[in-house]
């Protein structure tokens, strides 16, 4: 049984695009995490760290996550490739998470004003937390 509307009869508004973004960013984060894990194994993670450290690195490829392991050359783990990957993963995850918070709030705040406040606050959170996270990665 198919009940799907054709594309031109569906409203393509911001919420729909964010619905799609949530799914696509989930796949994107899977790609980044897999890339981090595979990259770590290529760089010698198998003999230089334990499983927990490998996962910590995969979820966020930031040098401080492997500082206390037996990696031979820390500079390899902090090159621009990993910093850019970490930044992209961070921004993707932040947008995904902040939109998730807006969705959760919408379940409990039904008023128009309340929802506007939630959206305003979500932008404030992204503007403040974005640069802070990038500074942690690049500093």
């Amino acid at each position: 049984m198919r009940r799907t509307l054709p594309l031109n009869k569906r409203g393509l508004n911001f919420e729909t695009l964010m619905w799609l973004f949530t799914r696509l960013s989930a796949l994107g984060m899977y790609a980044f995490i897999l890339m981090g894990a595979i990259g770590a194994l290529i760089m010698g993670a198998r003999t230089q760290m334990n499983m927990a450290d490998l996962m910590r690195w995969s979820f966020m490829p930031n040098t401080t996550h492997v500082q206390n392991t037996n990696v031979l050359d820390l500079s390899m783990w902090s090159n621009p490739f990993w910093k850019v990957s970490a930044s992209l993963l961070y921004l993707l995850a932040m947008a995904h998470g902040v939109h998730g918070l807006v969705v959760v709030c919408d379940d409990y705040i039904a008023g128009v004003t309340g929802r506007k406040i939630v959206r305003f606050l979500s932008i404030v959170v992204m503007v403040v937390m974005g640069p802070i996270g990038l500074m942690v990665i690049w500093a």
Partner: protein
Amino acid sequence: MGLNRNVSLNTGLQYKGREPMLTFVLHRIGGLGIVVFVGTHILSSFIGGQLGHAGNVVYESWIFQIIIFFCATFHAINGLRITILDLWPPLIEHQREAIWIEFAVFIPLYLIAVYVIIHTALGG
């Protein structure tokens, strides 16, 4: 509009949404857990010093790891299920089976991780 749900908490708790509802609730709890953890973790790394170090002691404790690993793993696996079913709508017919597969992946993975975390915490 506005919140006007004439349903008592007791009635709400008796709602039998079964597996889809359970995954919905756990997905939400997991998502909020990740937001709280990642948010405070970034802030404590940014602040650094004594306060930041105190935060990192909490994150490295085994109890915290068991909780956050549940949040992250369940959110990731359930999110993958939602993504696959939503991007390939014909598959929605098999949503119950999809949830069973999800738990078949999640439960062993999580139990192994809990075992490893506790084993490491006991100095193994």
